[in-house]
């Protein structure tokens, strides 16, 4: 009754979230005395997924799966789960996984808990801790189904290394045509994506105008970070909608979130709450964000940020 992992890849690259997922599955598999099977839809031969804990790799690759399609991936994973007799399927919190998972839930008649924040609390029944109330609380939920699907929160479990040699097997799946067709993709290909980023640099109305964003972009570049913004900034059109983070924008679960000139409205905090470390730079010592922050500087962004950029460059040079 192996643990099946939906080992996502993008353009043939198996990103950190997939590595975390496999490590997480391995820890569970070790407790349940079973194996991890990583199901992939793109060529796994160079990925060495065994090093993250996979025992086997199931290659579902075929032309209709070369681009992500939720319906087709769900159908392929359904067949893989049945073929392997999987008891548990592990998926990530990516947009694609969240799109696909509910379809898999119905096909497998599985119980599903997303936003899982750690290894199961118990195995009989399978009980997990997961974030609820937009990260303001934790729920402990037991699954009552014969197959369970767990959605792991980003950054909730690290990447662990194993010495496993994962055998790759090809699995043929029969897929019916999908009811949804992708016509085109608009991707900002050079920029770090908020969903993937370890560090997010975010700015708000305190920057006074879109013309002042140069230093934010420079700071992000020095840190290898994604850029983000508050809702008012997005509504004013100073920054693209895709940068809006918060309750009705994108969620942020990075290791480090730096908020510059953002007061910290509840809706903003709700969306960025699962970042590990929050830094606030604001001229107003009464800004609500300071109550939610781990570190802060009360000061003028137009002085602090250039200084931060400079000092970070020096720091990087020293630690190279």
């Amino acid at each position, binding site marked *: 009754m192996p643990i099946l992992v939906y080992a996502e890849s993008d353009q043939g690259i198996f990103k950190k979230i997939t590595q975390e997922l496999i490590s997480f599955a391995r820890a569970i598999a070790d407790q349940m005395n079973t194996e991890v099977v990583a199901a992939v839809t793109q060529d796994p031969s160079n990925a060495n997924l065994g090093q993250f804990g996979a025992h086997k790799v199931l290659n579902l690759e075929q032309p209709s799966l070369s681009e992500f399609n939720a319906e087709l991936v769900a159908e392929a994973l359904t067949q893989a789960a049945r073929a392997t007799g999987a008891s548990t399927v592990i998926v990530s919190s990516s947009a694609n996984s969240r799109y696909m998972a*509910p*379809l898999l839930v119905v096909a497998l008649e599985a119980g599903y808990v997303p936003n899982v924040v750690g290894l199961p609390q118990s195995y009989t029944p399978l009980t997990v801790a997961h974030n609820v109330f*937009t990260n303001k609380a934790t729920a402990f939920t037991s699954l009552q189904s014969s197959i369970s699907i767990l959605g792991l929160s980003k950054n909730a479990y690290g990447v662990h290394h194993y010495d496993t040699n994962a055998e790759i097997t090809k699995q043929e799946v029969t897929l019916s045509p999908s009811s949804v*067709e992708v016509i085109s*993709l608009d991707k900002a290909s050079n920029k770090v994506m908020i969903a993937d980023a*370890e560090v997010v640099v975010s700015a708000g109305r305190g920057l006074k105008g879109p013309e002042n964003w140069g230093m934010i972009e420079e700071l992000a570049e020095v840190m290898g970070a994604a850029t983000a913004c508050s809702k008012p900034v997005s509504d004013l059109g100073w920054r693209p909608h*895709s940068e809006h983070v918060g309750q009705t924008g994108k969620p942020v679960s990075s290791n480090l979130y730096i908020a510059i000139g953002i007061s910290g409205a509840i809706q903003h905090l709700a969306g960025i709450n699962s970042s590990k*470390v929050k830094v606030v730079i604001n001229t107003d010592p009464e800004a609500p964000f300071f109550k939610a922050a781990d570190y802060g500087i009360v000061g003028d962004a137009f002085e602090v940020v250039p200084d931060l950029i400079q000092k970070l460059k020096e720091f990087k040079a020293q630690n190279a």
Partner: protein
Amino acid sequence: MKILVCISHVPDTTSKINFNADQTAFDTTGVQYVINPNDEFGLTRALWFKEKQGATIHVVNVGGPETEPTLRKALAIGADEAIRINQPATDGYSVAQALATVVQEGQYDLVIAGRESIDYNGGMVPGMVAKICGYAFVNTCISIEIDGTTVTAVREIDGGKENLKTTLPLVIGGQKGLVEESDLRIPNMRGIMQARTKPLHVKQTENSNTMSQTLRYEKPAPKQAVTLVENAEQLINLLHNEAKVI
């Protein structure tokens, strides 16, 4: 076109989150309930379809009598009829089964659900309803246009957007982008008056199988006070040596 908008009855964003004495349920004392934010965008978009192309709009909620004020608010905003499925919203699975029954009975062309509700953050109901009913499904939908039965939609993905083509009948997991925040319709006096007499049907379904049970809740440990520093150098030092994030 028949549109069904799924409405979740959720605590307002600013609510303090507390649980009852044995930590087994959310404490609703003093909590203001609202239409789930993601659902609001879908409801206004449905109204645009009604005004520009002609459509009837039904709204549906799974819950007890306490959710009726929220359904009345959706009627006041402009929906034509409301349906309350009389059962607790125990888990995503049972809610999706209940909604699917209404979808199938009503033969809706378009079902709009919020992609995620701010209380339990399951994000699973829209997709499950689609799969149970055999409808096409687009999640994180930030734009939708319908011409006959042909649909062009835009899905928000990590790092960009996907332009999609599909057909009715369709379920979408909606969010901001379907309309902008400034476009959201709010109830006016006339709407509120009319809402009182618009139909609100209460239904029972036979499906209330649950797949999961929440045993208890916990609030996070109280947060430590912020560490304020004076300059960038001190910040970098702490981020590197203490927080270990750079």
